[in-house]
């Protein structure tokens, strides 16, 4: 039984690698906020760090927690929980910041924990159902995929970040 399972796993693994190489799949890092899972393409991830104090910025959207010093560069941190309509995260040293490169800019998103690295065939990605916009904004997710019985929302990074620029 075990060896059968092992064989199935390694077979699945080989398929995944092949699909990646063929450009038919995406490799994601998934992370959780409350019991919800979200993912971003692994190529956008620059660093994963434990939560550390931020310096708040005046006159910015509530989900912009502030900025940190990342080896000499100033990087803003977005609270993903707040961004998706939830309350401000009660941060502890176990919370995680995922630093991403979005276009030319680096930004960190605050999440509860990093979960997994998954390879997802394009074919398995479902579009976001209508009406999924939050507060009338553009959709913050580009798609949904099910992995190991979990629904993982693929984050629309430019949209998540777009709301972060200063209020006027």
């Amino acid at each position, binding site marked *: 039984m075990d060896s059968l399972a092992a064989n199935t796993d390694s077979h699945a693994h080989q398929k995944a690698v092949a699909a990646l190489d063929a450009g038919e799949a995406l490799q994601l890092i998934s992370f959780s906020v409350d019991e919800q899972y979200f993912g971003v393409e692994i190529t956008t991830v620059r660093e994963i760090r434990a939560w550390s*104090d*931020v*310096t*708040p*910025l*005046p*006159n*910015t959207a509530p989900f912009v927690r*502030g*900025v*940190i*010093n990342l080896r*000499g*560069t*100033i*990087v*803003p941190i977005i609270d993903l929980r707040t961004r998706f309509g939830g309350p401000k995260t009660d941060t502890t040293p176990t919370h995680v910041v995922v630093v991403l490169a979005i276009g030319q*800019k*680096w*930004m960190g998103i605050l999440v509860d924990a990093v979960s997994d690295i998954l390879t997802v065939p394009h074919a398995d990605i479902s579009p976001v159902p209508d009406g999924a916009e939050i507060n009338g904004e553009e959709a913050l997710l580009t798609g949904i995929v099910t992995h190991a019985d979990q629904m993982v929302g693929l984050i629309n990074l430019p949209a998540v970040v777009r709301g*972060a*620029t*200063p209020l*006027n």
Partner: protein
Amino acid sequence: DAMSFADMLSDVQGDPAPQEADSQPEIQPETQSENTREPAPPQAAASQGDPKPEPKAEKADKTAAKASATPAIQSVRVDLDKVDRVVNMVGELVITQAMLTEQIDDRLRDNYTDLVRGLEVLAQHSRSLQDSVMAIRAQPVKSVFARMPRLIRELSAQTGKKIRLEMHGETTEIDKTVIEQLSDPLTHMIRNSADHGIESPEARAEQGKPEEGTIMLSAEQAGGKIVIRVSDDGAGINRKRVYGLAVERGIIAEDAVLSDEDIDQLVFAPGFSTAESVSNISGRGVGMDVVRQNIQKLGGRVHVKSEPGRGSSVTLTLPLTLAVLDVMMVRVGEASYVLPLGSIVESIQMSDASVNTLPDGARVLQLRGEYIQVIDLASLFSFTSSVPESDQFLILCELEGNAKIGLVVDTILGQQQVVIKSLEENFARLDGIAGATILGDGRVALILDVTSLKSLHRARSGAEAA
């Protein structure tokens, strides 16, 4: 390979850009002798990460010392990326050195005199290194200014007006990346002066002005910034027309009440470009609003002053990139903020200051016959003050345009030098914030921009009132 080196050298000499101090002593021996240590010419050596540290340091030294004029200025072409990396590293070095200096206390001074002395010497060297490194990337504005006399001649011919150009401060140095972006805005500003500012010779004679109008272009370093000014002795801004056009374009309400100065700044409003600026002469209707956007992208600011009949002047204020800024550190609530020393006039203890509250809640300081707006930084940044008002300090600051403002802080922590880090690189420009810096303990502190703090305050008061 002496042949290709000579080609490269003449290629480099043709480059009008970097005016680094001469490196003749290093280059000449290599030209003459075929048996150089490196098989590749020095230029390639520069691209390979410079196996010879001393000549570079020597060159930087000479640049910093601004060697007296030599007949031929030698230069070496270096990838800007490499320079940027050095610039960043020096920035980090300055921060680390500042942190070390911060650690010096009496105990250290008493028991480790040599160590303390070493740190002090290190501080001096770091400062020299910063100056040298900044000088490497800095170029005189001359290269941009040089194109202007010809522009004036063309404009003079095109408009039929008599215009003379005066230039000052061409040797003022600015970071290379900033200089390249100045050409368009300056050209446009000068065209604007020629088009709308300077009157025809007849109109000028009627007013008793000399027939020939003057446009003055100047550059100087002031208060940690570069100030570039384009001024003319023409007619000044036609405020009625500007107001009318702004209403027409929906930029202001029909019955809006604006001060003269506010009307003047309308020329920078997005979408303002007047019909005249879409004339043949001013080109494709670039507009002063585009000038402002471009300057803001550089982290700078534009401001216009006008006197009807006398003339107008547009001032560009630009930051010195990789500036090591002299600042005053202050505490507001739980956070530390940093104020450029160049903006500070004086600091007054609140208990000594006569601050009154107006009916609308605004606070004013009465000082030597002046009434100065007071902004409480704690409430602006949503903190609760940790000290009673009488123990607080009021920092009197000067904005662009010579207006003054008083900022209330909890404590003054002291003066120091900091390296400016960009907030815009990964985020955006924020009102009230000039940038950020990294303190000795690794935390980020925001550098305040006094001029736009006023806008931030206005926005917040507006939001609260709403």
